[in-house]
Structure formats: structure tokens, C-alpha cells
């Protein structure tokens, strides 16, 4: 067998913190042949992106390659000069970043950024490369390929930008492309279009690729072989089908098992009982534009209602209406049959106490300068009027409930906690008000799957103990499946379907629910092929136009 295109040997990478260099990657090997796609998977902190960038001979500030070699087509990128590396980057090795919205320069048109590589690398001239760019846009099924490149990044939607970035990476017809979580920031229906586009074009040009993701189902569609990473070490590597069918390592098996958590079904609601929260014909607007149209649903005691939909469907806006942050233009909110003032400023303490929130970004939802004790103690004092020893006892009890040792965590700052722990503090803060109802706004979407599962289990346990009702906002249908009792599907500010979970997950569906459900990637490597066949490949492009 001939020499692989990319040969990584004993790669060790260190990152600097507090003036010392600490290992991030502890010696990883990787071989990649021409036209082959390898999937790198692992949780955050596993070093996936670091390895991806190092395959280009690139490290971010404060990170260095301390040992090992990265040989690309005979050139060791670790020892190569900056000029030699520049000659390869963009031309023979290209990069597709996680957030295309942030990685396109806001000051230049897409096509100008597209042609920059070929022109600077003297692969072709501007006019030729522009024509080629339009052709690539067409192949990637972007709407209006002739015209879309002449827009600025902010004028193009996220899924389209991600495809434009893939086109840009293809501009010099590289031998290797690094895809760094290219679909993580996208909605499921958009994700499919991007996945299909990427796979097609990589196959067409016989490009080798490193596909980085934390989503196993995605990597199953994209990669020929999979490498599992954990905290900078390789766990195992195998071809995709073997890896999915027979993972040998316990860690891999635990990753595979995450999606199996599911709550037992609860008895259905007694007819005639008063719901905890009723959303009654709510229409709400930002400025003069209506973003919610006549939204109604009930949430009953002890139950979890999942509100599902893509970004912009009005899920969070509904939450803002319930909490009174955004007074509805029409309609109203009832708590236990009593109509609430629309504006939170006109609700009294007891009314405010009833609806608590847990946020998506635990990082930004906690005041970085307040200790955990202060953060949780504040609502305890505000809502319950407890002070001194009583307050401390209540905070300790809350910490116990979220499974964090009180003496250890009381005086810590948020920066001393992990992502999952921060989210637990968010839960404790909501519980501190002793509410009957909690809104969980995408509480697990910023977390790794194993950690997210822990949070879901905790929420389920608290619900059983305290009889809480949850409104669970999410775009992730796996989460919906695992914890909800009822489902509300939203699209463009309208409830398109609602009902018991069991009914929602069995046909017939509303066409949009169907689209959402069928778009969730599955662990079957043939899933994408089958789906594309079912839908008819050409429809994908049309779906993209519809989304404009």
C-alpha cells in the first residue's frame, strides 16, 4: 500500500495556563488515505478540534505541538516553515469551521472571500474562480447560485453560509478538508441539506476529509472510519460499521448508550382538572412584527410539556410571554386558573415565584462574581424571606437536591465549576423559589451527551419528588423522546401540532412534524442514503429555497 496522504505520528500538544504547559493531546496517531473520510468524535475537551487544526500544522494562541509529526504528502507540517505551510493551507488543505456565520469576514462579499484563495495561491484568476464558485454553489444546491455569492455574510442564512464555506474550502480543489463540527449550530432540517451537500462534493472530487463532531449519528453518515477520543487520548479506531456494531471499549459503549434514557409514561391527565399553566390565544410581537400567532396550550401538574421547533419558531418567545418579560399583544396567561398580569412588573412576589426559568447557557446565566451560596441564597431570601442560619440550611438542602456536596460548593465561584455543574446550580436557583412550574429553555443543548443525560435524570427525579411541571423548550427530538409527556410543535410562531408524546411519535403526523422527526440523524450508516432516496434528492434543494 502506498504512503497515506496524511500521516500523524505520536502527536503531543500542550496548552498554556498559569504560566505552565499542560498536555492536551497525549500522543495520537492517524492515517488518512486519499479520498478517505475519518470521523473524530468525543466530548468537549477531548481535543478533537485541536487535532483537526494540528493536521494543518496550525495551533491556536497558547497552544503548541510539543512532539510528534504531521506528515502531509511528504511534508512534515510540524517542522515546516511558515511560508511552506502557507503554500499548502487553503490550496491543498482546507478548513470548514463550526460557525460559518462567525468565520466569514463580515466586511466582504461571499464570492470575494471565495476567490481570494485561488487568486492568492495563483491557482486561477479572479474571473475563472468566480465562475467556478458559482458552479460549486450550484452543486451544493444553494438557492440562486448566480447571485448568492454577491451578498454579505449577514444577508445569508446559517445553513446556506455553511454550504458556501464548504464551497470556499473546495475553491482550490484541496486533497484534504477538515470539517470542524460544520452542522452543530444548525437546525435538524437544515443539517440534512448540509450533510448531503458535503458528502456529495467530497465524493465527487475524491477529497480526503477529517470530520469532527460530537454527534455519533452524524459521523455515522459521513465517515469511512471513526476514531474515538477522550481527554486527549485515543480510545479506539475502527471502520464505521464495525465501530457502530461492536465498540470494544467501555467508554465508546457508554457514548453509544446515552440515547437510550427514557422516562416511563405517566398516567394521562384527569379530564376537567385545572392546569398549572394555561397559555390562552397568545399573540405577541417584537416591535410591529407579530412573532407568535394565537398560541394556546396547557401544562398540567407533574407533567412535562416539550415545546419543539427550529430556531425562530417562537419557542423562547412563548416562554417570555409566560414569564411576563414580553407582554402578549393579544391573549393571556393563567396560573392555576387565575389570569396573570401580562407584564412581570405588575405581578406580585407570589405570582413571580410560580414561574421560574433555567437557561440554555449556564455560563452566562450565572453572575461570575457571586459565589454559589450567594446565587442560590438570593431567591431563597427574596421569595421565602429566610435569613441567616435558616437561609444557609435551605441553600444546603437545595445543593443536596442537585447532588452537589454543600460544604464543598457553597463558597465556589461559577468559574470553578464544570458546564454540567453550572447547569445544576441553575436548577437549584429555580428550585429556591419553591415553584410549581419551571421553564427549561434548551437546558441541555450546550452540554455533552453524557452530562446532558445526568441533567435530564436529575430533572426527572425532582419532578417525581416535588410534583413539578416543566415546559421543556428544545430543538432536540431525542430529548423530547426521553423526558416529555406531551409535545407542542411550533413553526413560524404557530402551534402546528400538539398532543401526548405517544401520539406524536406515531404516524400520521402533521407534515412539518414528519419533516422534523425524519430529519433526526440515526445511528444507522445508511440512514442518510435511505432518507435522501425517500425524499428524492432534488427536493432537498427545494426545501432550502422554501426556507428563505
Amino acid at each position, binding site marked *: 500500500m502506498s504512503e497515506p496522504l496524511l500521516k500523524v505520528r505520536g502527536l503531543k500538544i500542550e496548552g498554556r495556563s498559569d504560566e505552565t504547559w499542560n498536555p492536551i493531546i497525549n500522543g495520537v496517531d492517524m492515517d488518512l488515505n486519499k479520498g478517505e473520510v475519518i470521523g473524530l468524535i468525543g466530548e468537549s475537551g477531548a481535543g478533537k478540534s485541536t487535532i483537526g487544526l494540528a493536521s494543518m500544522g496550525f495551533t491556536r494562541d497558547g497552544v503548541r505541538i510539543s512532539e510528534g509529526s504531521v506528515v502531509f504528502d511528504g511534508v512534515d507540517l510540524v517542522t515546516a516553515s511558515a511560508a511552506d505551510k502557507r503554500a499548502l493551507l487553503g490550496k491543498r488543505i482546507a478548513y470548514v469551521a463550526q460557525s460559518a456565520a462567525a468565520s466569514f469576514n463580515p466586511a*466582504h462579499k461571499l464570492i470575494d472571500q471565495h476567490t481570494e484563495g485561488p487568486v492568492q495561491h495563483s491557482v486561477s484568476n479572479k474571473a475563472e474562480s468566480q465562475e467556478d464558485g458559482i458552479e460549486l454553489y450550484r452543486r451544493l444546491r444553494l438557492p440562486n447560485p448566480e447571485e448568492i455569492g454577491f451578498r454579505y455574510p449577514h444577508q445569508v442564512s446559517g445553513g446556506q453560509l455553511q454550504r458556501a464555506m464548504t464551497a470556499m474550502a473546495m475553491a482550490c480543489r484541496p486533497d484534504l478538508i477538515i470539517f470542524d463540527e460544520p452542522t452543530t449550530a444548525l437546525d435538524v432540517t437544515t443539517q440534512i441539506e448540509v450533510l448531503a451537500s458535503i458528502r456529495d462534493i467530497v465524493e465527487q472530487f475524491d477529497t480526503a476529509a477529517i470530520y469532527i463532531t460530537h454527534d455519533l449519528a452524524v459521523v455515522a453518515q459521513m465517515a469511512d472510519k471513526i476514531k474515538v477520543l477522550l481527554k486527549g487520548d485515543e480510545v479506539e479506531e475502527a471502520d464505521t460499521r464495525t465501530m457502530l456494531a461492536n465498540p470494544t471499549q467501555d467508554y465508546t459503549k457508554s457514548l453509544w448508550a446515552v440515547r437510550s434514557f427514557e422516562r416511563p409514561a405517566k398516567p394521562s391527565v384527569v379530564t376537567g382538572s385545572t392546569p398549572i399553566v394555561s397559555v390562552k390565544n397568545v399573540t405577541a410581537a417584537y416591535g410591529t412584527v407579530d412573532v407568535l400567532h394565537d398560541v394556546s396550550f396547557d401544562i398540567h401538574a407533574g407533567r412535562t410539556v416539550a415545546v419543539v421547533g427550529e430556531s425562530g419558531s417562537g419557542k423562547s418567545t412563548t416562554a417570555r410571554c409566560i414569564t411576563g418579560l414580553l407582554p402578549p399583544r393579544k391573549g393571556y396567561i393563567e396560573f392555576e386558573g387565575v389570569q396573570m398580569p401580562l407584564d412581570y412588573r405588575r405581578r406580585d412576589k407570589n405570582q413571580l415565584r410560580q414561574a421560574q426559568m433555567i437557561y440554555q447557557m449556564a455560563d452566562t446565566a450565572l453572575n461570575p462574581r457571586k459565589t454559589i451560596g450567594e446565587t442560590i441564597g438570593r431567591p431563597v431570601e427574596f421569595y421565602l424571606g429566610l435569613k441567616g442560619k435558616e437561609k444557609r440550611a435551605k441553600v444546603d438542602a437545595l445543593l443536596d437536591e442537585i447532588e452537589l456536596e454543600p460544604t464543598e460548593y457553597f463558597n465556589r465561584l461559577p468559574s470553578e465549576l464544570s458546564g454540567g455543574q453550572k447547569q445544576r446550580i441553575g436548577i437549584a436557583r429555580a428550585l429556591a423559589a419553591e415553584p410549581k412550574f419551571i421553564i427549561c429553555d434548551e437546558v441541555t443543548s450546550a452540554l455533552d451527551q453524557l452530562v446532558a443525560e445526568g441533567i435530564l435524570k436529575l430533572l426527572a427525579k425532582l419532578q417525581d419528588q416535588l410534583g413539578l411541571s416543566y415546559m421543556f423548550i428544545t430543538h432536540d427530538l431525542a430529548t423530547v423522546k426521553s423526558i416529555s409527556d406531551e409535545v407542542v410543535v411550533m413553526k413560524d410562531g404557530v402551534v402546528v401540532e400538539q398532543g401526548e408524546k405517544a401520539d406524536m411519535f406515531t404516524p400520521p403526523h402533521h407534515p412539518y412534524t414528519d419533516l422534523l422527526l425524519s430529519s433526526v440523524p440515526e445511528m444507522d450508516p445508511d440512514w442518510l442514503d435511505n432518507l435522501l432516496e425517500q425524499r428524492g434528492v432534488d427536493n432537498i434543494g427545494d426545501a432550502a429555497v422554501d426556507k428563505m
Partner: protein
Amino acid sequence: MSGLLRIIVQRLLLGLVTLFVVSIIIFVAVNALPGDFAEAILGQGATEEAVTAIREQLGLNQNAFTRYATWLGGAVRGDLGVPLSQALFAGNFGTTATGTDVITVVDQIIPRLKNTLFLAGVSAAIAVPLAVTLGVLTALYRNSAFDKAMNVSTLSAISSPEFFIAYILILFLAVLNPVFPSLSNIFPGMEFSERLNRTMLPALTLTLAVTAQMMRMTRAAIINLLASPYIEMARLKGLSPMRVIVKHALPNALAPIITVIALNLAFLVTGVVVVEVVFVYPGIGQLFVDSVKIRDIPVVQACCLIFAAVYILLNLTADILSIISNPRLRHPK
């Protein structure tokens, strides 16, 4: 774009309000100075009768509010009045022009203002490109010896008093190596090249005074962006470091740079008194100081209004340019 137009009109109106407030502050401040024009001009010969006579002739004996109202009424019509030093009064021993030849405040200020704007223009033409170029280079070679040397030297320049820099420049560029004349006494009708030649030394002095801040802001604004994903992307496309900075960082760093440039341009118009005095440059700063000395209130007020207007207009221009430099606002969805 109609949004932009509305902002401009709004800001211009706000600017007028600001000017009005400034005029009150100036009037109060000048009146709070000890002594008045009559006492200042008569000096040792200030007998009580002479002082009273001059005050009466010039209307200085009216109450402050009336004087302010009269002046403001004229100013709104574009008539900034007559300098007290040129007005008809008993102590003005036959030097006053009579009849139609009365020199108004506007007549006195316009040529001076033109000279000041010329000096500011020359200084800006040197300083702004220099500062931005140095800013880009120091960002490109950040933390290198070049970067540190540039930072130290521009900071030293801004930390030294202007007159000191002025004399150093005279010493090296006029006395030891006679490149430029040390006196900048320009006058109307002078050839442009000669005028430019004579303006060089004050312009260089001002350049040294304003470069540091603009350069450091350019450097900081660019470095601030270097951690952005789109800069990483540009580097991963194999672009040269220079291209990454000029083509990808600079266009996104313009807003803060423009603001600092505007502030420094305003300084070039309003903060040049010392430099004008050292080089005997007939600008508005000298006129201003002389007028304060003799309590020539109409001239002082007019100068202050001009200074305030320059500040307001330059800041407005900076804001508009910042908006235009943002493609999100230039090309709405």
C-alpha cells in the same frame, strides 16, 4: 439609508443645542474673569471717568442678560458683531476705521481660521496615514522590537510638551540643518509651495503630538480582532500575515479608529495655540489668546463657537463614517 439621514439631521439639531449651551457657558465664564475690556485696554491710565465712558460707548454697562441676548440675536443672523478693539470709542486713538470700513469679528476670524485649517490639513495629511500605517505594522509585528520601539517613541513624543518638541525640531531642522524656516509667518497671496514649506515645522510638531494615540488605537483595534474566527479562517486559507491584517482585520476595526482620528483632528484645530505662538503662525489660536487678554468678548465667543462647532461636526462625521464602515448597516437584509 433614510435611517442614516435621520440620524444626521437629529445629530445636527442636537449640535445646535450644544452650541447654544456652549455659548452660555462661554459668556458666563468670560464675564467671570476679573476686569473688563475698558480696564484692560486703558491699563495704567484707567481713570474712573475714562472706564465709565468706554463702557457706556460699548454698551458694557448694560446687564449681562441684555448683552448676551443682543449678541445671540446677531449670531443667529450670522453677524458676530464688531471686535471691541475695532469699535468706536474714546480711548481708541484714531486707529479706528470709519464708516464702511468697519472690521467685523467675522472679517477678523476668517483669514485666521483659514490658516489654522490649512495647518490642521497639512498635519492630518501627514499624521493620519502615518499613524494608521504604523498601527498596522505594529499589529503585524506585535511584541517585536519594532513594535516596542514605535510605542516608546510615539509615547515619548506625546508626553513631551509641544513647545519642547517645537524647539527640538527648530534646532535640528532649521538651525543645524536648515531644511525648513523656523518662522511660519504666512500671509495671503503667498505661493502654495512656499506656504507649505513654512508650515512644515508646526505641522510636524502637531504630527508628533497626535500620532501616538491614533497609532495605538489602530494597533489595539486590529489585535482585538485577531482572535476572531474569520481571522483564523483567513490564516487557514494560507494568506500572508500582511494580507490577513490589512484585508481581513482592518476593515472590521475601522469604527474605533475613525473615532480617535476625529478627536485628534479636532485637537489639530482647537489645541494649537502653543505651536502657533512658537512658530509665529497667524492662526485662530493666537487671535483667541490675544482676545482673552484684552477681554474682547465678541471675538472670544466667536472663537469658542467655532471650536465647539468643529468638535461637533468632526464627531458627527466620525459617527456617520463608522456606520458606513459597517456592512450590516450599509447592506440591510
